[in-house]
C-alpha cells in the first residue's frame, strides 16, 4: 500500500479539517453542502447505470464508485468558460458540466457515439482511446493562448483546459507528448490524473516506480499529489492549478490518489486480480462519508436536508430508469450521416441499398 505522505489533504478520512502549508480552501458551508449534494447524486447516477447494465439496458458501464471527490472537487473548481477533455469514467465531471445523465446513458446503451453538444457543455465527450485526448486538450489550450483568451489578468474571464485521465494512461506516448507540448508552449492546461491504483488488472506499480506526480518535474511543471478522496483538497489544488494556467504560467500535473472501489467496467471481475482487503481499507476512506461526518458535526447537514437529498436521488434514479428504457434505437440510415461534411455519391448508393433492405424487411414483417 502506498503511503499518503506528501499528499495534500484538507479533510481527513475521519471527517476532520486538516491544515496544509500551501493549499487552503475558500469554500463556505453552502458550497460544501453543494459539493456533498453533487457527490451523493453522482453516486446514485452511477449505481443506477450499473443496475441498468445488469438488467440488459446498457451494453457496458464504467463505474466511478470511489472517485466522486476527485471528479466533483476538480470539476467544481472550473468556470463555465473552461473546457474539459475526459475519459469514459468521468460521469461526475459530465454532471458538473451540465450533461443530462440520460444522454450519458445513450453512449453506453449503444444508441449514439456521442450524445451531447461538446461545445455547448464545453465538455468534449467520453474518450475511449487511452491518452489520445490529452493531446487534444493541450492543443485546445494552445489555441486559447494564441487567441489571448488566457493570461489577461482577469481570472474571471481567462480560460483554461482540464484533461482527465488515469494512472494507466501515464504510460501512453500521447500523454507524455502532451506534457512536452504543454510545458514547451506553457499552455493553460491542467492535467488531472486520477490514480485509482488500477488500470483494469494492472497495479500502478506497472506504470511507474515513482509517485506519478513526481514525473511532472522532469517535464518542467509543478506536480501535486492530492488525496483524491478529499473533495475539499481536490477543489483547492485544482483551483490553484487553474489560476496558474489562467495567469499564463503554464500547465500543472495533479495526481489525485484514490481507489477504484468497483470493477473496471461491468464486464470486469476484480476478484481475479486484487485483494478484497484493499476494498475494506478504502471503504473506510469513502469520499462521501467523510464529508458527511464533517457537515453533520458542523450542523450544516441535518436529517431534513439528508432526507430531501435522498428523495432527489431517488427521483434521479427513477428518471434514469424510465428514460433509459424509452431511448429508441436510431434509424439505421443515420449511420451514413456525418461521415463527411457533405454528400458523397458512393455513400448515397449504399444508403439507398440499406433503405431498400429495410423497406423489404418491413413488408416481410407486415
Amino acid at each position, binding site marked *: 500500500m502506498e503511503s499518503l505522505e506528501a499528499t495534500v489533504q484538507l479533510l481527513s478520512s475521519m471527517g476532520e479539517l486538516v491544515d496544509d502549508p500551501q493549499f487552503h480552501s475558500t469554500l463556505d458551508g453552502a458550497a460544501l453542502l453543494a459539493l456533498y449534494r453533487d457527490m451523493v447524486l453522482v453516486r446514485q447516477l452511477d449505481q443506477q447505470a450499473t443496475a441498468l447494465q445488469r438488467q440488459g439496458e446498457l*451494453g*457496458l458501464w464504467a463505474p466511478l464508485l470511489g472517485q466522486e471527490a476527485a471528479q466533483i472537487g476538480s470539476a467544481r473548481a472550473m468556470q463555465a468558460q473552461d473546457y474539459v477533455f475526459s475519459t*469514459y469514467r468521468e460521469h461526475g465531471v459530465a454532471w458538473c458540466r451540465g450533461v443530462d445523465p440520460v444522454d450519458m446513458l445513450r*453512449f*453506453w*446503451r*449503444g*444508441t*449514439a*457515439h456521442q450524445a451531447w453538444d461538446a461545445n455547448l457543455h464545453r465538455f468534449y465527450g*467520453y474518450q*475511449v*482511446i*487511452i*491518452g489520445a485526448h490529452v493531446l487534444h486538450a493541450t492543443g485546445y489550450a494552445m489555441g486559447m493562448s494564441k487567441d489571448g483568451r488566457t493570461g489577461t489578468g482577469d481570472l474571471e474571464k481567462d480560460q483554461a483546459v482540464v484533461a482527465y485521465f488515469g494512472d*494507466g*494512461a501515464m*504510460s*501512453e*506516448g*500521447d500523454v507524455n507528448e502532451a506534457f512536452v507540448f504543454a510545458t514547451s508552449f506553457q499552455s493553460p492546461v491542467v492535467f488531472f490524473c486520477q490514480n485509482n491504483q488500477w*488500470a*483494469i*488488472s*494492472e497495479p500502478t506499480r*506497472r*506504470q511507474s516506480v515513482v509517485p506519478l506526480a513526481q514525473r511532472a518535474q522532469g517535464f518542467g511543471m509543478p506536480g501535486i499529489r492530492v488525496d483524491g478522496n478529499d473533495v475539499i483538497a481536490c477543489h483547492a489544488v485544482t483551483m490553484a492549478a487553474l489560476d496558474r494556467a489562467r495567469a499564463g504560467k503554464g500547465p500543472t500535473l495533479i495526481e489525485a490518489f484514490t481507489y477504484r472501489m468497483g470493477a473496471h467496467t461491468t*464486464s*470486469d471481475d476484480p476478484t*481475479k*486480480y486484487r485483494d478484497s482487503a484493499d476494498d475494506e481499507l478504502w471503504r473506510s476512506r469513502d469520499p462521501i462519508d467523510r464529508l458527511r461526518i464533517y457537515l453533520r458535526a458542523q450542523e450544516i447537514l441535518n436529517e431534513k436536508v439528508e432526507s430531501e437529498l435522498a428523495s432527489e436521488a431517488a427521483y434521479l434514479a427513477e428518471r434514469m430508469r424510465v428514460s433509459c428504457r424509452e431511448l429508441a*434505437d*436510431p*434509424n*439505421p440510415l*443515420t*449511420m*451514413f450521416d456525418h*461521415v463527411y461534411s457533405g454528400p458523397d455519391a*458512393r*455513400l448515397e448508393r*449504399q444508403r439507398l441499398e*440499406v433503405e431498400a*433492405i*429495410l423497406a423489404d424487411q418491413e413488408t416481410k414483417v407486415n
Partner: protein
Amino acid sequence: MTELSIVQALNRGLRCAMESDPKVLLMGEDIGKLGGVFRVTEGLQKDFGEDRVIDAPLAESGIVGTAIGLALYGYRPVIEIQFDGFVYPAFDQIIVQLARMRYRSAGVLQLPITIRMPFGGGIGSVEHHGESPEAYFASTPGLRVVTCANPVDAYWMIQQAIASDDPVIFLEPKRRYWQKGEVDLSETLTSVPSMYQAKVLVEGSDCTIICYGPTVATSLHAAALAAQDGVSLEVIDLRTLSPLDLVTMEKSVKKTGRAVVVHEASSSGGIGGEVGQCLTESCFYYLQAPVLRVTGYDTPYPPSRIEDVYLPDVDRILDAVEKSMSY
C-alpha cells in the same frame, strides 16, 4: 477429439507453443492474472511465470517496439492487443519497423513476432470495441495477416503463426470466441493444412462464397439455406488475408464461374476489392458475373444498436448470390 471453444483452443495452442519453445513469451495488457479480457491467456501466467507471460505497461507502441527488440535478441514474442480499436498507437512500430526489418536488412534480421487481436463487430459494446482493421495490415508488404474462424484453425494456426519466422497479424473473430467445435489434438503441426492456404469448407457448383473470420459462420448458414432452394454454394474460408491464396480461389471460381466476397470491413480499399480484382485478372474468361461484395458500408462502425444493419447477414449474402446467378 476434444470439444473446445475458440478461446479455449487459442489458450491450448499458446500453451503448446510455450511448452515447445522456451523463447516464446507473451506480452500484453491484462494478460497475466486476469488472463486477458477474453480469457485467452487464462492460467498461463500461473504456469509459465511472470517472466514469460508479461503484463505490459499501458502503451501499445511500447509493447510492439520492445517486442521488436526482444525478437532481435532472440525471443519469439506473442503480443495480445486488447481490442482491434487499440492497435493504432502501435501503428508506426508495426508498419514502419516490424513489416520491413527483414527486407531492410537484406534478410539478416528477422522478427518472428505474432500480434494477436480480437476483431470485428457484433458484441454490442461501445466505440472502438468493434473494428475491422485488416486491410491496413494486408496492404503492408512484409506482414502476414491471418484469421481463424473455428476452434480447429484457432488451435493450429496460432501455433503456426508463432512458429513462423515472419511477423504475423493474427486476427481473432471476437463474436465467435465462444463458438465450439471438435479438435483432434493428436495431429501434428506439420500434418495439418498450412495457415498460408485457404480452405474449401463446403463444396458446391453454382457460386463461390469467399469469406473469413466472423463471416464464415454466416456464409455457412447461407450455403445451407441456399441448398434447400437447390442452389449449390461453395464456401471458401480465406484464412490468410495477405498474402492471398490465389490458387485455391481460382480453382473454385473456374469451376463455379461466380464469386461473392463477404467481410465486415468497409468495401472501399478492402480485401473484397483485392480478391475480386485478382480473380478478374486470372479467371476473366471463366466468370459468368462480376465478383460481388457483401461488406460493411463505407462508414465508421455505427453505434452498436444499429450494427446489425451494418454487418453482412444471411439475407444480404443470398441476395448477392441471386444477383450473381441472374447475370
